[in-house]
């Protein structure tokens, strides 16, 4: 998985609790992305980062925040998890932000919010 790890790989939590997912890369790629994958929707971009401390919103950012204090780490936080945030979350990285630059995906985190 191109030097990308995600932790935890599985998590079950309760509605209203905060949750943080971590993406760690060893490729020194500048761009990092968080997607969620749901049946009937494919993958949808939540947030992305184009450098340390530089982040922006994606298509489905409501209820999520992100932080990137180091090149290698990109954190996704659900401040107060809801059942609608039950999903599989994928981190991706790319070396440059231009179209045609391949995005490499991590192994995913399966999150269940009860």
């Amino acid at each position, binding site marked *: 998985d191109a030097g990308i790890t995600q932790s935890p790989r599985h998590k079950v939590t309760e509605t209203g609790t905060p949750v943080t997912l971590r993406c760690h890369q060893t490729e020194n790629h500048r*761009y990092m992305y968080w997607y969620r994958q749901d049946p009937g929707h494919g993958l949808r971009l939540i947030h992305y980062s184009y450098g340390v401390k530089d982040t922006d919103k994606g298509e489905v950012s409501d209820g999520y925040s992100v932080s990137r204090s180091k090149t290698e780490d990109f954190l996704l936080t659900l401040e107060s998890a809801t059942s609608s945030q039950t999903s599989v979350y994928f981190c991706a990285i790319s070396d440059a*932000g231009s179209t045609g630059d391949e*995005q490499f995906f991590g192994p*995913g985190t399966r999150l269940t919010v009860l």
Partner: protein
Amino acid sequence: QQQVKQSPQSLIVQKGGIPIINCAYENTAFDYFPWYQQFPGKGPALLIAIRPDVSEKKEGRFTISFNKSAKQFSLHIMDSQPGDSATYFCAASYQTGANNLFFGTGTRLTVIP
């Protein structure tokens, strides 16, 4: 609102058959169209990609056909094998400074031996 529409949702073919997966888009600003392959429990991986200045691209047994005027593109898998059984996603992106990908809803392909 799904920016890239993908069909069919699932597909079953015999070994050696040629499954075809179709995608359509509306945003003419899209200028890059990749296909991703995903096996159960894994992240998606880039399979093949095309830009709108060509009508076809082939890599091994995988071919993308692109129809710019119809705003449609499709993936063909020649001589399909059981190992091709996976979920396939089409996607599209345009230059926003971050190469944000818009994905189709996915097609689960099963190749029967």
